[in-house]
């Protein structure tokens, strides 16, 4: 019997209990969240467990929810079990004043660049990262462009219809 979402959920709750919460199955993809202090423990458990074997970090990114006070930034891990070919999504939330999250780069080497990218665009401070500096944007940039508090650059252009790009706005 190969691994199922229910089994993963059961294993996580057996191991960690209450703190692991918010289980969802969007389009069949198991998704859950945990306090940010526990991110390494959970990733390590998912990696090491003989049944779970989530040993491939597909993606690591952040999301900004400016209206969710105290939980403005989410760091999202996408993991893949290559044996049973099953994926899951794991989120930790952090406030925007102290966006400190432990680095996963000791566990997954691929997290190194992805965390730099996440830092570059969202300003998440990955504690323990060996080389946390900008990777895609110019070094002189002094803001985190994908945070919603930073508007797009040129608010004054009216020659293009932003509605076409899902941003509201009209041509005058």
């Amino acid at each position, binding site marked *: 019997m190969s691994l199922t979402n229910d089994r993963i959920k059961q294993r996580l709750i057996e191991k960690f209990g209450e703190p692991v919460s918010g289980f969802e199955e969007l389009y069949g993809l198991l998704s859950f969240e945990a306090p940010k202090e526990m991110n390494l423990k959970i990733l390590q458990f998912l990696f090491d467990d003989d049944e779970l074997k989530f040993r491939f970090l597909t993606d690591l990114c952040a999301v900004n929810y400016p209206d969710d006070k105290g939980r403005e930034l989410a760091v999202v891990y996408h993991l893949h079990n290559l044996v049973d070919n099953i994926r899951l999504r794991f989120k930790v939330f952090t406030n925007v004043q102290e966006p400190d999250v432990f680095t996963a780069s000791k566990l997954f080497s691929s997290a190194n660049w992805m965390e730099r990218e996440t830092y570059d665009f969202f300003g998440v401070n990955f504690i323990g990262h060996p080389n946390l500096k900008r990777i895609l*944007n*110019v070094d002189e940039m002094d803001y985190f*462009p994908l945070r919603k508090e*930073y508007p*797009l*650059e040129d608010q004054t252009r009216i020659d*293009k219809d*932003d509605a076409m790009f899902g941003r509201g706005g009209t041509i005058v």
Partner: protein
Amino acid sequence: MDVTTNNFPGKIHETPGGGVVLSKLDDVINWARSNSLWPLTFATSCCGIEMMSVASAKYDFSRFGFEVARATPRQADVIIIAGTIVNKMAPVLRRLYDQMADPKYVIAMGACAISGGPFFYNTYSVVKGADHVVPVDVYIPGCPPRPEALLHALITLQEKIKSGLTREQIKETSYLNP
């Protein structure tokens, strides 16, 4: 005194001892330059695909003397900016341009190179037109421009060179610089 005539292309400078030959030589040099422009292989996004298509058999810009694409700026005469220039690429473009030997020419291909692009015009990462970074000789609108449009731009550049209007000569021409 400079005299412009209808028959003779260019100017006759009345200086002692064969000033006419000088003008003539300029024309010959410009003619030679315009028919052997070596482009730098420089494509930063989708417009580059169109530029490759112009280089290939169907459109074939070697018919106009552009076939010797160089992978080093030191041997190139013209840089076709085919694609989006992002802030991080801008210093690289500038360095490539500075490394090219004079005379050098620039063609801005596509909306991105002209103005920052049809999609990227309002973003944190894109230069709003390559002419913020290097001087541009010919602009080609389009997204991407048709291969014919690039050929037209190449021919336009040739005409510009043949008519003697290199940047240095434009600077010298008093009616543009009163």
